[in-house]
């Protein structure tokens, strides 16, 4: 698999570390139900068949965290953006 790093260009899978679904956001620790929110954030994940925005770390490259859009059925990669610059 090849991942298009915005800094480094198309690079081999072996340079990256997988983290998983990019959707969960760290909840507000001051929220009333923070412990529930954190439980969901830490442990619960959807497992969709299809395109998924997920986090990858370019460990053997520029050390950027990327949001990569990958189709979980085919491993087709639609693109990658820097997590820091991702609006979501």
């Amino acid at each position, binding site marked *: 698999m*090849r991942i298009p790093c915005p800094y480094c260009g*198309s690079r*081999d899978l072996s340079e990256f570390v997988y*983290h998983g679904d990019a959707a969960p956001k760290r909840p507000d620790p*001051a929220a009333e139900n*923070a412990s529930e929110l954190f439980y969901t954030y*830490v442990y619960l994940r959807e497992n969709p068949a299809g395109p998924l925005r997920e986090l990858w*770390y370019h460990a053997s490259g520029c050390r950027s*965290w990327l949001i990569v859009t990958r189709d979980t059925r085919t491993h087709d990669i639609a693109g990658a953006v820097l*997590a820091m610059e991702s609006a979501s």
Partner: protein
Amino acid sequence: MTRLGSGGLIDRSQQLRFTFDGKSYAGHAGDTLASALVANDVKLVGRSFKYHRPRGILTAGAEEPNALVELGTGTRREPNTRATTVELFDGLVASSQNRWPTLALDLLSLNQLLSPFFVGGFYYKTFMWPASFWEKVYEPLIRRAAGLGRASGLPDPDAYEKATAFCDVLVIGSGPAGLMAARTAARAGARVILCEDDFRLGGRLLAERVEVEGRPGAEFARSVEDELAAMPEVRIFRRTQVFGTYDGGTYGALERVADHLLAPPPGVPRQRLWHIVARRCVNAMGAVERPIAFADNDRPGVMLAAAVRTYVNRFAALPARRAVVFTTTDDGWRTAQDLIAAGAEVSAVVDPRREVPDSIMAPLARSGARLLRAAKVTRAIGGSSGVKAVEVAQGGSLLRIEADGLAVSGGWNPQVGLTTHKGSRARWSPELSTFVPGSLPEGMRVAGAVSGDYGLSACLRAGHDAGSAAAQDCGFAAASPDVPRAEDEPIAVAPLWHVTGGRGKSFVDQQNDVTVKDVEIAWREGFRAVEHLKRYTTLGMATDQGKTSNVVGHAIMAELTGRPMEDVGTTVTRPPHLPVAIGAFAGRHRGRHFKPTRYVSGHDWALRHGATMVDAGQWLRPQWFSAPGETDWLTSVIREVKTTRLAVGVCDVSTLGKIDIKGKDAGVFLDRVYINRFSTLPVGKARYGIMLREDGFVMDDGTTARLGPMHYVMSTTTANAGKVMQHLEFYHQVVWPELDIAMVSVTEHWAQYAVAGPRSREVIQAIYGTAADVSNGSFPYLACREIMLGEIPTRLFRLSFSGEMAFEIAIPARYGESLLGELLREAVGRGGCAYGTEALGVMRVEKGHVAGNELNGQTVVRDLGLGRMASSEKDYVGRIMAGRPALVASDRPTLVGVQPVDSKQRLRAGAHVLALGAATTAENDVGYVTSVVYSPTVGSWIGLALVKGGTAQVGTRMRAYDPVRNGDIEVNLVSPIFVDPKGERLHG
């Protein structure tokens, strides 16, 4: 000898000697082992997997199921090598497999008499009962009787390497389609990689008597090769099999760099594993011929018809002097023509079809061969020395035709493997009676026989078109069309899968000894889906993955179930398309080189000073230093500890992770990743910190120092340096991108040394001289400062892991060794020494500091007695989850010290802690000993343990039970701090 006097693509001027089963033979440059055996009239080359049936050479390619040999001797003995693809070299040593004591007299062929036990499903039925018989009786019996080659059992002496190549267009296969694809794409300007499994380019052009542009096929192939070789953007990989299609246009290929040599030359790998990254791919892998199942169709001398043509035309070796051709295809008839042209006799051509075009039969009209239509071969007659005659059924009568070879053509199977590796299925073509590629992986085109285009002219055109389209996809303008002139030979096929009626076994899968009867048994017993058929009979599960057998087996199942082939389908194949040695996948990652080795700058210095090194993650660290006369490690370690506690010791701590963190928000960031505060830390001070994972468990600990208002330097444990960096980057880039910080790992940039003990200050002062005042008043416990040592920047910290007054001094790594030398000289002058990780560990356990054994991913800060460090006035990573009920429960195992009641007894890490008198059951297990050292300060073995309700249990006597090493001793639970519990020495 059956070598022809002329013709072929062998170099008769070069004679190559080789041995097969100890007997010496000669071949020529350009031969394969199989062709040289054919030329030497060797018919019997192996014994079959289950029944030990005599077997010969069936094919001339990588799909060979039978002619598997052991190649080489000693450490280089390679089992299950296909003789058909082994390039002959001088001195080659090959031997047959799976026979005992010799190939001709194989006593285990008695297995044939036991054959009722070996039928379909035999693994599942015969050996099920009684269960105890499996291990003792059946398995050893089967392992001895069945099986193929023997692994050498010795370390592989050769090197393997991995490499990556990039191209616009990857062309797989160099037959007419592949050559044209490569030439057309290259002429358009594309960067082309052409991979060919064979040692010579040309594919079937080398094996058929065909003409392209009025020249012999092999000559045409040579001219295209010459043109490609002269183009700078073209790379030709010979002896390279593409074995897998992977994601994103990546292909796996194995280059046999030195397999055609007696041994790899110095510095040359035996094989090279390629990752080929291609924007487009033209798959021109071709097709393999398939056999027909009839009684005793596995006799030596029965060979696929196209293979016969290969041996005759390419290798000038006659597989038979008097042959019968059994064909359901038009092209099978050409085998008869080629044999006759080479001077052999053809007794008969047997074709089950009623109608065969005159144009095909005419050339044989005056050959003397009997041309039998609507006829089938029912049995091959002969034994281990080869075919003697062929039994043919025609119109209700049985004929016996004398022959010493039988050429069989049952049609063609496109090599669809690489098109299915990403999950698509091959599609049944009723017109071609075979499976052709279904949907293709992105970026791949197929051209030629692999897509069912068998004719030569069709292949040339398809290759040209695919190469042109692939180049255009990559942005290159199409070159002007140039398709060479050639004929399309007749290629009609009437499917015939098996012939009934003959007496004897009819083999479908010759490598796994699966017969037509086995398929019938699977059908009768309900294993009718092809994936069930495969597992029940082992059809297609051998090293050849059923390249010649799967379709035949599936077609027989289709007949039995009365379902069309498109419904029956075919099994999924996975990479590798051909066997690849594990060594090639491992590459250079063997033994010591499985992972990189990282050396501290004081490595050589340590070796010169008697150090024994130890792995610490990827690093090598001094474990202890043997002084003259010391012969056991404990003596050295005890001396190092005592010397440090009494005078001074120097220890290399360069491997600890170091992360430089700068920015306006650095303090805020550290407050969020550590459980304690760092934003309030004054400049010039250091503080011990603990960070958690978001799930609440302890991740790592270390000291972070503030060098400036916006500048911190963090230290991590050696083992977690990379993980912590990734963790910090995650929280910075993903969770809090708004924070204004930047960080970089500086682990390798700084060498760092701990100087510990009551005389450590003298050593440090001696190093700095007047450059710095390191007295307690000026440089107290937990102070830090950047100090110039001449022109060299250094960082000095007052930190202690040992409990003694101690300093850590960091210097740019290139000065590490020289500073280390000076530190030791100053230390030795004061009665000090160097110490290693063992003494470091002893002193940290004596002082009750936790390390990797306690920071094991299952402990929370309270477990470690560090709960009071956690700030209640801020949020931090892991805070919320650490509050889960189970993580704050009062009966969690917590840190205590353990000490044997009898100080002479040895405590062991890993021992379980039980109440005195409690039965040794899992329910009574209240904890375990995490770390154990011999403490010269205490005078006994001591340890740290995690024990339920531990702190409250201090003062009780318990039992440390270690069944693995027969340890069972009484211990006192004590405070984990064995030395200087008030911490007075630190502040001295």
